[in-house]
């Protein structure tokens, strides 16, 4: 029978997280972030964390909550705008920041989960990102060697999950979650709806349960919107 990954909640799910660890956190902006796990990390008061996440949240939400408490010593991200406290800590030198092209970040996480220690990509050639990295031409075009990323814990957020750890994400809340799920030594998945094994269609699963060590149903999702852009219901538009 399937291997059950279900735990009671964020507290059990975060058991073993220690100061000084490297964590991956899924999400793009505030979309698809593991809200409940982040809340638990704040409560645990763990610090000196290295966080691998495409973004750093906003001042008062997402990873911004960990930045406020000075729990993060290093961020590995592709884009960290939208966060004044982040910019302050970075420019003052309190926070170490490693900025990586978004596609390389995604692929490095996937490589970490897939047992591929390194790969070549054209992204970043000729820029600061290439400093200290091997450059090699393929078909006459220069590429740089990028290495795999892994983490002690990966925290991901899905829409639905089953007790076997299988995950289905919703729309663009998928983003970095599947690759980070692959790359965590311990991957914690929080889901809006946790269902028994056998409930999800095996053809529609985005992250196979083998990549997930713990799963729980989160509570009180805020799912904050960063840029609420709408069309008026009165003015028709073909935009």
């Amino acid at each position: 029978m399937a291997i059950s990954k279900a735990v009671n909640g964020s507290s059990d799910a975060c058991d073993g997280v220690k100061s000084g660890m490297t964590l991956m956190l899924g999400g793009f902006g505030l979309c698809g972030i593991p809200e409940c796990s982040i809340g638990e990390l704040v409560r645990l008061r763990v610090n000196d964390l290295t966080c691998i996440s495409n973004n750093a949240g906003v001042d008062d939400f997402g990873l911004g909550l960990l930045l406020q408490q000075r729990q993060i010593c290093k961020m590995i991200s592709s884009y960290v705008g939208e966060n004044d406290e982040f910019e302050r800590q970075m420019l003052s030198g309190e926070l170490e920041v490693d900025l990586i092209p978004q596609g390389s970040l995604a692929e490095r996480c996937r490589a970490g989960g897939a047992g591929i220690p390194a790969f070549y990509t054209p992204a970043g050639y000729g820029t600061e990102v290439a400093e200290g990295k091997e450059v090699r031409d393929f078909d006459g075009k220069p590429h740089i060697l990028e290495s795999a990323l892994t983490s002690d814990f990966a925290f991901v957020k899905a829409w639905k999950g089953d007790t076997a750890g299988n995950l289905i994400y919703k729309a663009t809340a998928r983003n970095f979650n599947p690759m980070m799920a692959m790359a965590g030594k311990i991957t914690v998945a929080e889901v809006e709806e946790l269902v028994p094994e056998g409930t999800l269609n095996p053809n529609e699963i985005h992250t196979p349960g083998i990549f997930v060590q713990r799963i729980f149903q989160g509570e009180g999702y805020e799912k904050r919107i960063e840029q609420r852009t709408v069309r008026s219901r009165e003015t028709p538009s073909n935009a």
Partner: protein
Amino acid sequence: MLDKNGIAKRIAQEIEPGWYVNLGIGIPTLVANYIPEGMEVEFQSENGILGMGPFPLEGDEDADLINAGKQTITAMPGAVYFDSATSFAMIRGQHVQLTVLGAMEVAQNGDIANWKIPGKMVKGMGGAMDLVASAENIIVAMMHTNRAGESKILPACSLPLTGVGCVKRVVTNLAVLDIRGGAFHLAERAPGVTVEEIIAATAGELIIPNFVPEMRIN
């Protein structure tokens, strides 16, 4: 002189039926508004959607459906969602026919800088480095000069680079410029803008043909 929507309108004319197009944040996002009705074009947003549609109607916003600018959007019929690794597989693998993005500086050798002002502003490169390193066809959409009136069309970039030798065409509020042979070539003037005004606003080497047509913007 064009406003931001004018720049977007002009760039929309570059798009051909059957193209997949990645639009960056800012002016590039506006390009989607000027695609002729019924034209077969799909917009990719690198956070994980192909077939991006317009902003949702008031009240229909979904926190789980955004574009790379973190704006709430909708999905068109035929749309598809995917993860970030697959998204950049599309980009790096050159399955996207056109990339439109903004810039702080563009150089006459095709270099572009748009992600960092050392010691002052560090937002990060996001997906821009992957896009410019991979795309065959890159159009930069930007204002010709910065707020201080200084040219952003330069002999060489002064800011940290996003990519080297990659920009083919620049559309600004003043002109359409092509980059080839290590120089800018003036292709079109914005409506009401003279060649002299463009020369004055351009710091990089600018090659001017005998006749410089005015853009046609509908």
